[in-house]
């Protein structure tokens, strides 16, 4: 647990007075961060199950809601409005959901260079709204005072964190690959004229030489033939 707490110490203030204690165990992040990382983890699992990562970016209605969730964070995140632990958890959950809903399909599309294997249908949009409603209901019963809930929460938080790390690394790898390709192609372009000159010169020279030899051979043969013929 100390390793997880250490890991999250880089990402959260870990204010104990603003952290949930679940069945006697203190979560290693504050209430809002708990919501954020759990929201990211749960949404990532949802997207994996629905194969939403292979589809296009979410439809406009979902994007608008996600953007609204992102914009709502400063109000709660910078304590302009702080009605209590449940609200902190809620703001984190919807914020995490919005981030992963955008991040995962975006990373997938970027790494496929704009290619996608499916698109959002009406059932998939409906399922998102059901999922979103579920997320909004979590603060009503969370945290359940059970050790299982504590470990499940930790697991989802780690999944959420890994999801972001995975998306960022996928895009980074894609960028590096792209960069290398472009470097290689630009290098080729610079090398090409010289090569072409060399090759054409060689061909020409070779042809010329071979031609010269051929002509000479022909002449010799002609001479020989003439000789023989004549």
């Amino acid at each position, binding site marked *: 647990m100390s390793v997880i*707490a250490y890991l999250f110490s*880089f*990402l*959260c*203030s*870990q*204010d*104990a*007075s*603003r*952290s949930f*204690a679940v069945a*006697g*165990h*203190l979560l290693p992040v*504050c209430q*809002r*961060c708990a919501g*954020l990382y759990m929201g990211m983890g749960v949404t990532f699992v949802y997207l994996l199950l629905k194969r939403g990562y292979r589809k*296009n*970016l979410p439809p406009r209605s979902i*994007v608008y809601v996600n953007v609204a969730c*992102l914009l709502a*964070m400063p109000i709660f*995140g*910078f304590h302009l409005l702080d009605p209590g*632990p449940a609200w902190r958890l809620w703001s984190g959950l919807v*914020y995490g959901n*919005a*981030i*992963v809903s*955008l*991040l995962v*399909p*975006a*990373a*997938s*599309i*970027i790494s496929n*260079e*704009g*290619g*996608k294997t499916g698109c959002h249908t009406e059932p998939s949009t409906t399922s998102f709204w059901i999922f979103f409603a579920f997320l909004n209901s979590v603060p009503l019963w969370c945290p359940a005072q059970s050790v299982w809930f504590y470990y499940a929460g930790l697991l989802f938080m780690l999944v959420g964190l890994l999801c*972001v790390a995975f*998306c*960022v690394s996928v*895009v980074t790898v894609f960028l590096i690959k792209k960069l290398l390709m472009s470097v290689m192609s630009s290098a080729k372009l610079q090398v090409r004229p010289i090569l072409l000159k060399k090759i054409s010169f060689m061909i020409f020279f070779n042809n010329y030489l071979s031609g010269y030899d051929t002509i000479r051979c022909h002449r010799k043969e002609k001479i020989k033939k003439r000789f023989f013929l004549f």
Partner: protein
Amino acid sequence: MNTQENKTVGCRKAWIAFVAASSCLLIYVMACVMSPAGWSPDSSKIAILVTPPGEGDNPKEFAIFVYDTATGARTLLDEVKADGVLSAPAWSPDGKWIAYYKVEPSPSEQVGPSSEPNAAVSIGERPGNTPEDKPDRSAPSTPAEQLFSEENQMLPSFMFELAEEQVKDKNDVETFDVKLVTATPDGKYKETLQVMKWVGGDDDRKSMVCMRPTWSPDCKRLFYVRAIKDESYTASIDIATGTTYAHLLGSVATPAVSPDGKWVASYLEDDDTLVASRIDGSVCKYFKLDLEIGDDRPPMLDITFWSRDSRKILVVDKDSVLHGIDIASGQTELYKDPDANSIAYPVISSTDKRLYYLVGFRTGEEGPPPQTISLKRMDLQGKGTRTIFTFRMPELSDEGGGVFSISPNGKIVLLRAIIKDESGEGKSALIFWDGKTQKIVKTDRWLLKPLYGDSNLIFEEKLIGKWRGEDSRITIAKGTQEKTYKLTWVEEDKEHHAVANLIRLKGVTFLGVFLDESLVEPGSHLLPDVFMRVAQIEPKLLLQTIEYDKLAEVLEKAAESIRPEDIGAENIAEFERAK
């Protein structure tokens, strides 16, 4: 639009979404990490009264230390020996001052030079003030004036006069001088604000360790109590002018001042009455309670305290139920934790204005304390509760139960107790819990003065090896640090470990043994648990145990070198080198 164009547009949108989402996440994480909870000055340090180990209820030495919980640095603020007494210290709300009561040792038992009695004295230079600015705070000269020297602001006013007459009528009244001292936390400046006569004997002197003065929220006034026989009255001193006022009668040793600085409250145990008086003396209210809050309660506890809006006085009764008494209407509201059977050591947080308390520990309860204790928080408005963290109690010694306190920001729980160390012996310790870590600080050593310095440390190769005694075996090896030994000894089939230094003091060699290996560290590395004189190494190792106090005495007496007869020949153990 062809497929390639579709891909380009899709890719562009994906990039926008990716950058937006990752930027939002980054901004959030940075905002969360960069704004950690601020530690108020009084939660980062503690001022603590320390007494020597093993002296029980009658310690011969008192010292007040300021301990920095983050760095572990400690500063000695004040100390008294013999029959002198110090009270528990009280931090000023701005964190710049510490106030406490001090009783100097009686002249016959006085060890060091004492300051002149009945006079206000100061040591060091007062920060931001010149000595000329200081008002004359000499104590009144006549005995009657010394007993009741304050300006009467009690309501009804005859109560003060009645109390005065009770004492004045008797000729054989036993009194002692109590100083009200303020000091800066670094110990560089100390000032005696007031020297006052207390009526009482030895028991009253001893009870002083369980009380402390109280600061007004603006730090301009200091509230104190004065014992008059079985009761006491609460008074205050205006620090700028030195004028003193008597406010109310009460049984509580630590008066409760309202956060708005307008009211002071106390409790009359015999009448089960709560008294709240306006500091300007205009109003005094008496609330008859039926709580028996004084029974079976350690006197150190702040029995009464105020809500943050200064409208209610909060009192924990004998059943650990919190009662809020509205000073305007006199109505009582109950605050109970539905999940806990007690509300112990309550404190209103200075940061979020909520009530923090401990559950799982019942004050005055017989039998062993529970294994786990939770720090909980209650919202006094909605009465909703929440567990902040739960911690396990360490194994305590049979000598004492311990006293908890919660930091003013509600984030740290401190237990002062005697714990069992590795060898099973009791050690006075401070145990801090912050929800993530447990920190144990042993305080017995704090009162010791190092008897040697780094220059006295020596190293003898001959000491290394296996030694066999009459009923024990010792293995001495080279320690991990320079000039240290690692000791392992087996006694009655039980193996013990320690670290030791070899010290040369006034011609005699001593082995300073640290039973806790972690003590070989800066600050404690010159304060071993046990001293042993190394009388001889070859052919036989002769070790003689000598007590710290005795060694200190011998060292003080010896002019140049210690003679063997100064130490004596008791407690010498003989060891042969084992093959």
